[in-house]
């Protein structure tokens, strides 16, 4: 013990500090992230629900004996029963089946707008934050303008004008999300650029591009992940809303939003027709938001710059 201390007795770290470092080093990596994510109850619930929905969407044919599209005029608007445990719709189709298949659209379609908004938004934000000058002003003014139109309204306008179908709806949702990423990435870029370690690398002679990709970008990923995970719920909701308004996917393909819209017409006669798919949207979005909230909390030390 004494010998070891002797060798460390100079300026270098004594055993305590080394032990301390070892203890802290397990705070990196994605295992640590997962542990933080699932230490609370709500993200855990969220993860379970999301996984169930995913299984339902992927293995839909194995989980139900019915077809989601072919009408069955013998079984029109039946209330929930042992044969159709969520009831049937106005064309006699099993609602449970349609909800499983509808999940394919509602869940997987969410990733297209996510990609559109994040790729365009992050690029614009980085450009505005690094290039500065008139480019910065123009980009950010346009983003301000986009943000001052209520997003649902803008989506409706874009989707309505491009023509009602799923792809147009997803493009509309994607475009509307751009400004949010651009704003955050822009602000983060500016703030990271002010940090001392960027100053230090500038003093080493590093180029602007080098600073952007090696110093700034890795340090703005955490906020980007956070916005992305928090926005998935909103995207699913937006797709459902557009479908509800008839601006999304067209019949007979099932989607949760359009199912609620159809059910709306039979609210007095067959309330299950709108309540069941609506509940599916609600559950799914809530589960995704529980997860997104957890991701934000788990990444908090990264965000506050302590990591």
């Amino acid at each position: 013990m004494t010998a070891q201390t002797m060798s460390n007795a100079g300026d270098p770290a004594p055993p305590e500090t080394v032990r301390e470092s070892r203890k802290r080093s397990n705070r990196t990596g994605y295992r640590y992230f997962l542990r933080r994510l699932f230490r609370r109850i709500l993200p855990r619930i969220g993860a379970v629900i999301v996984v169930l929905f995913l299984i339902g969407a992927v293995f839909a044919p194995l989980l139900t004996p019915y077809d989601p599209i072919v009408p069955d005029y013998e079984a029109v608007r039946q209330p929930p029963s042992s044969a159709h445990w969520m009831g049937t719709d106005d064309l006699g189709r099993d609602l449970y089946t349609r909800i499983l298949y509808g999940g394919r659209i509602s869940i997987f379609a969410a990733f297209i707008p996510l990609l559109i908004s994040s790729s365009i938004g992050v690029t614009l934000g980085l450009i505005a934050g690094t290039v500065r000058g008139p480019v910065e002003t123009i980009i950010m003014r346009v983003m301000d303008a986009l943000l001052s139109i209520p997003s649902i309204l803008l989506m409706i306008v874009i989707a309505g004008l491009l023509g009602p179908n799923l792809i147009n709806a997803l493009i509309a949702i994607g475009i509307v999300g751009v400004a949010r990423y651009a704003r955050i990435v822009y602000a983060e870029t500016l703030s990271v650029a002010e940090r001392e370690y960027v100053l230090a690398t500038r003093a080493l002679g590093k180029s602007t591009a080098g600073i952007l990709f090696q110093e700034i970008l890795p340090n703005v990923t955490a906020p980007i992940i956070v916005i992305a995970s928090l926005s998935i719920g909103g995207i699913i909701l937006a797709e459902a809303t557009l479908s509800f308004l008839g601006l999304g996917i067209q019949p007979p393909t099932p989607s949760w939003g359009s199912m609620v819209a159809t059910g709306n017409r039979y609210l007095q006669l067959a309330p299950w027709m709108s309540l069941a798919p609506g509940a599916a949207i609600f559950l799914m979005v809530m589960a995704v938001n529980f997860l997104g909230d957890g991701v934000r909390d788990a990444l908090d030390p990264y965000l506050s710059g302590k990591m």
Partner: protein
Amino acid sequence: MIQYIIRRLLATIPVLLIVTFIVFTLMFMAPGDPIYLLVDVEQTDGLTEVQMDALRHELGLDRPLIVQYGDWLWHALQGDLGTSIRGGRQVSDMLKSAFPVSMELALLSIVFALVIAIPIGIYAALKPNSFGDLLGTSLAIGGISAPNFWVALLLVYLFAVKLSLLPSSGFVRFSEDIPANLERMVLPVITLGIGLMASVMRMTRSGMLEVMHQDYIRTARAKGAKEGRVVFKHAFRNAMLPVLTIIGLQFGALLGGAVVIEQIFSLPGMGRLGLDAIFIRDFPVVQGVVLVITLSYLTVNLVVDLLYGLLDPRIRVS
């Protein structure tokens, strides 16, 4: 102060220009002949290609996009937003009658959201990680996650169909019969307010949590202030600052949500006007609705910023 307001008002000009230009461009990028955006189909029925070209020329559709936009802007500045292609009513008249309906809906929703959200948010912040906090957080996330069209149907089903407590649709103007108007506003206001309620609840909670860790809260305790005084005198006003900001930002979502809600409850507001116009591609009306809604959003945010200055002396100087 006056200077600040002037600067803010000037700053809204480019935003409005960009917004209207974006919508204008979208209209002309959309598939289909733009002539149908300006003229009722019945009028063009049976016209020959030559006659159509003549009509296009008359309407100025053969000019470059930017010139056409300038033309629209020039008229808009004089208060002329054009006429609807259905029925030929003045767009500005249509907006005048729809605007108060949407504003009433939005303002009542804000009141509803604040009254419920702030107390719950404060409670959750004071007892973080308690069961009540968990419940509040779940409620808040639930509120953000619930599709408003579905909530609307649930409420209608419950209060109108099952319990027959409230009328499910029909509209009476505020100026005509206040109790009847309010009765019909209850369900739309709750539906629209839930999302804002959730945001405000979360913001109140996180704002309070953050403020309670500030140095000046420790000072207040160190001078012997009781916990109630610490919370309501020292923390509350500071914690309300981000809440105010979120109300401003969420006002846009509120106006957007109104599009859907007005449709479901058949309220003759701007959202419904705009949505109907989208479906029949009634361009002048769409452009007018977007303009007015954006303008309201910007105005509300200006008011929010001015209020912010009243609450926070640090902002007043600059």
